[in-house]
């Protein structure tokens, strides 16, 4: 809905609710919630935690955007996980194998990652539009396949090398690195955080100012109305999945080019799933996703302090889970309340002339079924 209140209220309610839930959980388990929260907040000021949070949030942000692009048209790209990992390993292999001037080298690696992510997402997209295979099923299976592909690619007899007890790709030469902004003891901010910002702005512009974004949102809200309006549903599915995959392909770039320079078998996984949660939390809106990503990163990073004060850090997982569940409920509740308020306002401003009677009731039920899915994030 249009109002700021309608957008901000649900996540705030959800966070407050889950904080309460965690407080109760902690109290029941005998820990002191106040100390835990204090420890988490003060942790942000310690060492490199603040910078780590931002770095981590940037990665989450990309994953969540990738998911959000699909959500805009009710496509559930649960395969972001597989797409980003396959893209990461491919980009690392290509990056190590080529030799280009500084800057261009990194650009090529990033493009390879985006293209690989898109290509891997093309599989569920094509299966959906040609064979009507649901993208959730195919992309979950492709996640499992991705793990195997990666293990194969980084074998020593393929493109990998053994390092100590770990195995990974060859290191990318320095010309392919993207430097960060150093804060001394406070850590180093990934240079690609700025690319992430640009992508976020680009996403907003695309969703709200371009024909493509309009068609995407229209398809998400009502595939039938979109079709009557001349939107080619199959083409939209393909393009949306490819874009989602391309953004997913970038997920590991800040870490790969800014810190690791190699893809290891132990490189972090799970960002794709975190992205789903954050996209839900941020309601597919680029600003909302940014806040969600920061919150998530804060919870992740500062939870390390909890063990020091005798609070199990797993409480954060409970909190994250309950935030996602309650935010989904809160959005729906607020959406209904707002729609009702809106209709009441329209009715009041027009005066209660009888002609809205039965019609208003009918539209109420239609509207709520039509848009229970998450699809209004990019609006305005």
């Amino acid at each position, binding site marked *: *809905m*249009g109002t700021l209140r309608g957008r901000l209220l649900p996540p705030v309610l959800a966070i407050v609710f889950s904080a309460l839930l965690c407080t109760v959980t902690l109290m029941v388990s005998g820990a002191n919630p106040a100390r835990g929260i204090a420890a988490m907040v003060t942790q942000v000021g310690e060492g490199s935690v603040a910078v780590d949070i931002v770095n981590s949030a940037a990665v989450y942000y990309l994953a969540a955007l990738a998911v959000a692009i699909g959500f805009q048209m009710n496509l559930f790209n649960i395969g972001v996980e597989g797409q980003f990992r396959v893209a990461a390993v491919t980009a690392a292999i290509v990056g190590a194998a080529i030799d280009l001037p500084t800057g261009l080298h990194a650009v090529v690696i990033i493009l390879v990652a985006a293209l690989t992510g898109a290509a891997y997402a093309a599989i569920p997209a094509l299966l959906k539009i040609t064979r009507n295979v649901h993208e959730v099923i195919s992309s979950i299976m492709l996640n499992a396949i991705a793990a195997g592909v990666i293990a194969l690619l980084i074998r020593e007899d393929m493109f990998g090398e053994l390092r100590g007890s770990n195995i990974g790709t060859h290191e990318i030469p320095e010309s392919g690195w993207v430097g960060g902004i150093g804060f001394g003891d406070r850590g180093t901010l990934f240079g690609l955080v700025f690319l992430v910002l640009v992508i976020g702005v680009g996403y907003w512009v695309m969703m709200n*100012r*371009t*024909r*493509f*974004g*309009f*068609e995407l*949102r*229209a398809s998400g*809200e*009502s595939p*039938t*109305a*979109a*079709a*009557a*309006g*001349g*939107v*080619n549903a199959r083409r939209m599915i393909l393009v949306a999945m490819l874009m989602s995959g391309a953004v997913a392909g970038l997920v590991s770039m800040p870490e790969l080019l800014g810190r690791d320079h190699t893809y290891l078998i132990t490189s972090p996984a799970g960002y794709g799933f975190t992205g789903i949660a954050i996209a839900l939390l941020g309601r597919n809106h680029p600003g909302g996703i940014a806040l969600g990503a920061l919150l998530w990163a804060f919870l992740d990073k500062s939870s390390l302090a909890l063990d020091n004060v005798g609070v199990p850090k797993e409480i954060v997982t409970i909190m994250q889970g309950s935030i996602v569940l309650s935010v989904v409920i809160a959005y729906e509740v607020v959406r209904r309340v707002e*729609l*009702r*308020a*809106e*209709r*009441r*306002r*329209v*009715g*009041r*401003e*027009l005066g*209660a*002339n*009888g*002609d*809205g*009677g*039965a*019609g*208003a*009731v*009918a*539209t*109420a039920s*239609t*509207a709520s079924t*039509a*848009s229970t899915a998450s*699809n*209004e994030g990019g*609006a305005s």
Partner: protein
Amino acid sequence: MTTTHPGDRAVVLAGITKRFPGVVANRDVRLTVRRGEVHALCGENGAGKSTLMKILYGMQQPDEGTIEVNGEQVRFRSPADAIAVGIGMVHQHFMLADNLTVLENVVLGAEHLHGIGGRARRRIAELGRQTGFAIDPDAVVEQLGVADRQRVEILKVLYRGARIVILDEPTAVLVPQEVEELFVSVRAMREQGYTFLFISHKLDEVRSIADSITVIRRGTTVGTADPRTVSNRQLAEMMVGSELPSPETRESTVTDRPVLELRSLTLRSADGQRDLLHDVDLVVRAGEIVGIAGVEGNGQTELVEAVVGMRRISSGQVLLSGRDLTRVGTLARREAGIGYVPEDRHRHGLLLTQPLWANRILGYQTRPPVSRRGGWLDIDGARRDTERIVREFDVRTPGIEVPAAALSGGNQQKLIIGRELSGEPSVLVASHPTRGVDVGAQALIWEQIKDARAAGLAVLLISADLDELIGLSDTIKVMLRGRLVAEADPRTVTPEELGAAMTGAGVHERGGVDDRGADDRGADNRDADNRDADNRDADNRGAEGQGTGDPGTGDPATGAGTDTGNDERGHGSVEGGER
């Protein structure tokens, strides 16, 4: 009308008020129904009739007011309470399980009454005798036509012990001959002491069936009338509070310039078994409104979707001003000049949660004033043009930022008409353009379509409202089972004649309905089903054909219609189904 003592009153509603967010659906409604009468509740679409009946049936609770049934005050929390005191409701949209038999449908949910076996069967047979409904209890509902489905709905209600039956716009889905049959049954049941509440806005029907009439306007009852003395005009004026609009177009603006041409359009069903559209040839000229009459489910929806490109045709051609559009998609067809008013505005016409200006963009996302070159939207342009539509088409809204779902049906429809007439279309494909809208919006929509026609627009009009069809059209074609089987002259044809042609039951020349191409499969046999004809095998139809004894089919001797001569398939006989 003698004075009624309280025991004679089947239903008394007093001071009923029901508010919904933003509107008062019913305000201080008073209604008295005597036992054993057919009481009509008349009012325009959206006047609050359905809400009132939902209250009487326990589906909604009134905010104020009292309900008395058979002299006792009652309070319904759910339809079960209403059923318990003998009130039943036959909904406008049937609520039947298609894949079950008549018996199963009737018994479903009421198994405790007479079991599910022999006793239930005997009870149904008994009710069938009382009402004069001859339906095979073992027929699968899927195989039944609309009129028979309605009978099953009525049986369901009676089986549950209803003595007071609410019929919610029962004739909306029927053709005139079926309406007459329904009335015969209703009269027979009235003789046996059943009470009917008959909801309708069709004045002729109301006057022919009702013993008394209550008129409802803008949510409140404005008076009662005696059907024996009241005229249509008086009733209409009670209903709308002013003079009724008329769809009539004044003078012909038809030119000889063809705009939309369909050549042997054929659309095969998904399973490839049948033709949903068969060899449809149609020309709509500039300044001409071509109306398509037909019982719903005979290919009109498919025809519209084939024209706008939402369905791929199996063979044939779609031409717009000579340009072949057969191979291009919906967007290109819209850009070429096809405007489209879909039959279901919620499913196909609007993005309900989006603001009005975003709805202005839908279908026009590639064109000014809502779009710029290079794939950019022109949001300011869209806002400005939406303001214009709101002004010119009298869309009642507090602003263009409200979501489309917040508008009433009539205003949503005005927005759609405004949008579809904005892109300088050369042809407008309008499917049921005034379905479910209030009378004011209806008048405005008719006016706008007439103006656009006068300015040279070609219009393909599909409507179930035969008055609208006859009033607006320059030419009427009748569609039956995916074929255009007859042509009628709107200046001379009557709704009854058109209804007969729609069922293929009787086509006769005096009404100006030209039979052309009622082919061997027999337009003379009733289509057993109007809604999901897809499910059935066409070849069985001949055997299943029913309604062959329609009272209105006329004398076989009236012979074949005057063939228009452009059709070599030959004209079939018009005998009522003597196959």
